[in-house]
């Protein structure tokens, strides 16, 4: 893609509804890898109808790539719907589990008080570590991790975001 194409890299959140067939996730992720699309995160789970999965994909690319992603994914036989979850009209949430090394009571107090402000929960304690569970959009999690920059993070698990549109206008009935 050379020439006049819009080269500005954008991040976009896509929501997919797909038949919950064996291999549907590999069909989708295979499409991303063979066409060289950048995927930042992908989360999947069943909807209220167990035959259908809701998949949230965060992808980056220029406008042309993002359009291709939407069209190529829509082409997959198992995919019922794909559309963008626009930030202004949607709720995004990500779950993070953060295991931080704590060397003193002071450390613990600092982390626990910050966790409080972020409405995070302490879910595990050991003599030299704390595990924090935090839910929020990506910027909230990034902000919390920033506060811990002086601490040693032993392990970090982030789920990638899941999202839904606000209200009933954008609900896809299938």
């Amino acid at each position, binding site marked *: *893609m050379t*020439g006049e194409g819009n080269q500005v890299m954008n991040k976009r959140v896509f929501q997919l509804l797909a038949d919950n067939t*064996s*291999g549907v996730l590999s069909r989708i992720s*295979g499409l991303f890898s063979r066409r060289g699309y950048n995927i930042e995160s992908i989360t999947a789970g069943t909807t209220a109808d167990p035959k259908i999965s809701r998949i949230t994909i965060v992808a980056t690319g220029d406008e042309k790539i993002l359009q291709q992603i939407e*069209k190529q994914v*829509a082409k997959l*036989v198992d995919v019922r719907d794909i559309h963008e979850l626009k930030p202004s009209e949607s709720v995004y949430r990500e779950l993070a589990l953060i295991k931080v090394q704590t060397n003193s009571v002071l450390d613990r107090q600092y982390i626990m008080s910050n966790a409080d402000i972020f409405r995070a929960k302490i879910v595990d304690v050991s003599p030299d570590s704390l595990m924090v569970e935090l839910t929020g959009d990506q910027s909230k999690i990034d902000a919390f991790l920033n506060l811990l920059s002086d601490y040693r993070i032993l392990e970090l698990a982030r789920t990638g975001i899941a999202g839904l549109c606000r209200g009933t206008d954008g609900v896809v009935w299938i």
Partner: protein
Amino acid sequence: MIGADAMVKCLEEEHVSMVFGYPGVAICPFYNSILQSDIRTILVRTEQNAAHAASGVARTTGGVGVCAVTSGPGATNLITGIATAFADSIPLVCITGQVNSELLGSDVFQEADITGAVESFVKYSYLVRDAADIPRIFKEAFHIASTGRKGPVLIDVPIDVQNARMDKWSYPDSVSLRTYKPTVKGNMVQIKKVVKELAKAKRPLICAGGGVHLSNAQESLRSFVEAYHIPVVSTMMGIGVMPTKHPLYYGMVGNNGQPYANRAISDSDLLIMVGARVADRAVNQPDLITKDKVLVHIDVDPAEIGKNAGPTIPLVGDAKHIFEDLAAQDITGAYEEWLALLESYRERMQPRREEYADHVDPARFIRMLSEEMEDDAVYVADVGQNQIWSCAYHVVKKGQFLTSGGMGTMGYSIPAAVGAKLANPQKQVVAVCGDGSFQMSMMELATMRQHDVPAKIIVLKNNYLGMVRQYQHFTYHDHYSVVDLSGSPDIAKIAAAYDMDCIVLENMEHAKEAIRKFLDAKEPILMVCEIHPMNLV
């Protein structure tokens, strides 16, 4: 009734008349059941060619080609054939046997994860878990393969599923695929926009791709351009949409196309691409094409539109429907000046080629061959210099031109010609290959002999992998590497070994008589033409 019986009944329901394949234990129940049916089975000599032969059937009948092979290496050998069909959007249903369901994933003898392996070359694939699903899956597979943007669908059937008892049989009348609904009708608002652009345009041009053949839109396109005097060029896959000698046809575009066709593209102010990908081989710098012209892109696959070139007017739908809708519109526009200009380009920009005496000249030979061929003959070009010569010099009258355009798979022509001939016994079918591509598929002479397939094979022989040699000649200044075909067999002797005649043509002196004799033969026949290795495309 067992699963394998159901598979065969499904093929009967889909009016499949022949299956190409190669058996093995894992597909044996199917091949046992098919003995009860009138469906013809054709044993090819390597699995890849089963897919190519099925492609030859699909492209000459407008139906779906079917092949069936065994698990493991049988299935993996099929992959190149499937990828070739996928690249050219050819509808196939490929059936593979699979090891026992309970053993899946344990790397037993002849187990290969074929649905995983072909994922990027199929429109869809199925691994059948329950024999009761066979009717639905086959119905869906034929539907998916033959609608929207066509393509291959693979059905992998474990041997225990083929052997499983089925209590009841019923074949669904329709498919209920809520996730798969291709757009066929073009949007009227977009069509009206095209009409407006045609009225404004001074130099409109239609570039027809393989999609025009796939939607069977050749006639609707032809009558449309004849009514409004709009010139047409084609991609390689679009050859044959217009008869080569049609006054409104200006040849094939692309880096191996006619210079006047490329000039027509660059001079046009309104370019209507239909059923073409606007890929690198057809259009130089596709992303810049909209700089100086209005681009209308018609394709049944919305993902093709805007992939390589941003269109001014995207138009999703089936080419046949769209040209019928366009023809019903009131179109004003006069393009006589533009046609006169194109005519002058055609006269002025004829490529000059060197001729080598004492050898067969491919240009003159192919022209002569086309003149002698029947009007509705099927010409199958292989891949290499022979393909480029065939594109440039074969004169399509009312027949078809088949080749592997997207994938460029060497060895395609002979098995595809076998399929085409079996499906169209009344038509003349000629495969034209090089000595490299011939050797990739020469085992299929046995298939032709065994099943009495009087297809005709021409080998343009220069003792080199000519296309690569030519590339090395220009790019690496005659540093030739691994392109020498020394050690090749005497093709006339090969033909004799299969009890076939072979005409060897050393120069142009008796070419016409030789061609007549070749075309008049009732049996399968070969013809070898000695080409000078420095004869370049």
